[in-house]
């Protein structure tokens, strides 16, 4: 019960902190002071109080998409185990729902982008669906590996939440491979460098940022909140695979988990600082590398 409470609180409150930490890390690398780590909270609060401008071209899809995205990401967040506790909801096949809820969110985000009738946003939507069709196979290969190693068909079981026993011996190599693959998927899905640049210095404004060009006010606030939550939710899966130990003490496990998540943000910040963003036509090769990594990992666990 307490675990569920902590889960909900973390899921709802922590997400906007992660982009703050990423940005702080990048600023330190660049020798700047950078915005405060809580900047995204301020931004969201500010946006929620603003009015908005809505294009005459748009339909209800444009207004509904941000909240549908938020709902989908939130429910996906309920399915992911945080820390050493099982998720709020866990059942056989929940990882499929997890993947498909992001699909639902993508459907509405891209539709909303195209709803404005702008060439920019069409470009972003086009890139989004293209890259998603490459990240999805990598994600499913990773699921296959996890199912094979853990023998469980639920995210909580796959990630060994709630138990001290971890993956069987000899599973280090495949796990490392899917961690790298999943990290690429994580960067791509959250529109980070090297796939996309959240600061968006052109290449016609890239992927995620260009899709939300026309959203303003509370709608933009919801989008920002939802995308930070997506970062949190996708990151938690990764953290659960990476962290090889939990103490078994409730409060310590939660601290380990939160620490891991913050470290992940720092790692993302470092990645973004040391790697240049790829040209758009080069992105598929990275994503295909992720598919190959996860796919070969699956072949390894089969034999």
């Amino acid at each position, binding site marked *: 019960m307490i675990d569920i409470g902590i889960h909900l609180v973390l899921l709802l409150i922590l997400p906007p902190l992660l982009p703050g930490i990423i940005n702080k890390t990048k600023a330190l690398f660049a020798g700047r002071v950078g915005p405060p780590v809580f900047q995204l909270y301020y931004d969201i609060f500010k946006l929620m109080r603003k*009015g*908005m*401008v*809505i*294009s005459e*071209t*748009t*339909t209800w*899809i444009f*207004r*509904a998409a941000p*909240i549908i995205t938020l*709902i*989908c990401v*939130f429910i996906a967040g309920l399915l992911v185990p945080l820390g050493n506790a099982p998720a709020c*909801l866990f059942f*056989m*096949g*929940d990882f*499929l*729902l997890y993947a*498909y809820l992001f*699909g*639902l969110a993508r*459907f509405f985000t*891209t*539709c909303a982008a*195209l*709803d*404005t*009738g*702008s*060439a*920019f*946003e*069409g*470009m972003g*939507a*086009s*890139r989004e*669906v*293209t890259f998603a*069709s*490459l990240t*999805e*196979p990598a994600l*499913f290969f990773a699921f*296959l590996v996890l*199912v*094979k190693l853990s*023998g469980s*068909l639920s995210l909580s079981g796959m990630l060994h939440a709630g138990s001290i026993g971890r993956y069987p011996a000899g599973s280090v190599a495949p796990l490392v491979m899917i961690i790298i693959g999943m990290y690429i998927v994580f960067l791509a899905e959250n529109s980070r460098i090297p796939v996309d640049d959240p600061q968006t210095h052109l290449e016609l*404004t890239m992927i995620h940022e260009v899709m939300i*060009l*026309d959203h303003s*006010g509370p709608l933009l606030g919801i989008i920002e909140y939802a995308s930070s939550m997506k970062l949190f939710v996708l990151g938690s899966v990764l953290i659960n695979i990476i962290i090889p130990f939990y103490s078994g003490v409730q409060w310590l496990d939660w601290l380990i988990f939160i620490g891991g998540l913050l470290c992940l943000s720092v790692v993302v910040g470092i990645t973004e600082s040391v790697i240049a963003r790829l040209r*758009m036509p080069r992105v598929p090769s990275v994503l295909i590398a992720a598919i190959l990594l996860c*796919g070969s990992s*699956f072949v390894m666990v*089969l034999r």
Partner: protein
Amino acid sequence: MLSSDIIGPVHPEIFDLKELKMLSVMCVISGLSIIAASGIPALFFSSSSISAHRLTVLLFIAGSLLGISGTVMALYSPIPFVLSYNWVLPFGQFSVSVDKLSAFFLFLIFIIPALGSVYSLGYWKQSEHPENGHKLGLFYGLLVGSMAMVVISHDGVLFLIAWEIMALSAFFVLTTEDEKSEVRKTGWIYLVCTHIGTLLLFALFTFWNKATGSFLLEMASALPSGVSSVLFLLTFLAFSFKAGFIPFHIWLPGAHANAPSHVSAIMSGVLLKIGIYGIIRMTGLLPVIEPWWGAVFLAVGAFTGLFGITFALAQRDFKRILAYSSIENIGIIGMGIGLALLGRAFAKPELIILGMGGSLFHVWNHALFKSLLFFNSGAVIHATHTRDIEQMGGLAKSMPFTALFFIIGALAISALPPLNGFAGEWLLYIGLFKTLGLSQIPDLAFAGFASVALAMIGTLAVATFVRMYSTVFLGSSRFPLHDPVQDSVKSMQIPMAIVSVICICLGVIPVLVAPFLDGAVRAWVPLVGLSVSVFDLAPVSWLTTIGFSLFVFFAVYALWMKIAKTKHATQKGITWDCGYSEPTARMQYTGTSFTRTIVNLLSFMLQPKIREREKMVHFPEKKIFHTSFPDLVLDRLVLPFFELCNKIVPRMYVFQQGQTHLYVLYILLMIIALFVCSGIGVGL
């Protein structure tokens, strides 16, 4: 006789079970006969009589209701009843039975075409189509009636007769507008394909008769493995032409695109499924299953799915996109059959239940959302007078209901929760992932690769339908339309509304289909002593929880927006577009540009034909850019082959001189040749 405490299911104590079964078969047969004959009375009316059309529809619905009641009764009988009569033909007999597998398909056959028939009242008005309305009504009824007959046939010969009536009436409905040359061309391709399939069916049933000693479609007691493998291959090839597995799909895209929309709806939604029915029925009758059969279906299914959705992504004809997406869905259904066959080969009941359950559930789902989308295509094409999606745009404002129905269909077909497409694929996914847990059969885990194909199909389907929805309904109108566009008439909207509601219901409460699925799976293979239901293996109640919570959250938000509207200042303006102040409709992303990157990535599969002309002069001149995506099998293999034949065959004309004595000489030469051959034969 009825006591007060029994209102629900019919108990055998009240009705004589045998009578009930008899009644059920009779209801189905009379229902399908009424449907088959529904177009005949209209022939006696004038060719533009609306009341004749209404009469046809009324008869059709009456027949469907009768058929449905018979099918429901069949669900209550544990053992199917076989009704047999001898007939004057030298072989086979008139033998029908309605078991739960037939019943599962009968529901489709009775419900969706009936909706299509109502739809035709607005879509194919008799007064607007006096030249072919009655013909369409006649063959539409005959097509549906014969499909029902195929499904209840219990004898190979009867099956073949019904099959041929079905195939021919499908030819006549799809060539309704036979004054157009494109329609005639696709009609011919269909006719050739369906007859290759029929020919293989002749081989199948002859061989079946040889192997089992009768034409009756009953579980064979024991067959040598070679014989059953041949039977399996014949089944696969013969029915694949109808179901549309690649490379046997060549008739499908053209036929679906050129038929009237409600005909496309039942062709894609129901007719393809009769091919699937044939595969499921015949594999169910074979006693021993080889492991490679399942592997064949998994591989062919995955390939068909990927190939189909890739082509759907590239098309720009509204109905051709839907047609290729039907191929994709047939692939998914095939993967389910493959998993179930593997389950039987390795005696793993959970794989049988999840594979066949997922496959059959997807049969229903696809029939529902695809007919919804085809109904939609009719409404849109009626309003815009074109099938080219690049000429549409912004229709959501003038056709809000059509747009709403489309998005429900699009979400369902992209297998997104909380709609029925997801529920079906979920079963299949769980089945595929379960193969990993069976460590005693490690080779089975290769089925896991199919789940990755399924995931990829899913994301490409999202891309396809986002593209379609946004190009047709969102943004602003790309070309000025001739007439003011408005939502279609009630008779077209009501069928769409009904199907949409069913899609949502089955998606949120999938447990509704459990009794149908369980019965059908057990009719396919008797799982003796195993009472586990499909949804015991996949905790489907969670889909209900999640589905409802999605709706509740969204409703709360919509309410909040209503309240918050007063608090926040909302301005209307033109699309910001990075500050560009004069956006025009031509500047929007088109469907083709939307999929440009992904099509380039997949060009090794698609092989696009690009025609580009750009003169390099000092001042830019008119530029031509044209892409097309010819079908890999039809346009690149089959048609070139026949063209080659056309070139070679005329050389044979030299033998045809039109002089009698030459022909006598040919006969003489032939006889000599035969003598020589038989002489060699004796010598050997």
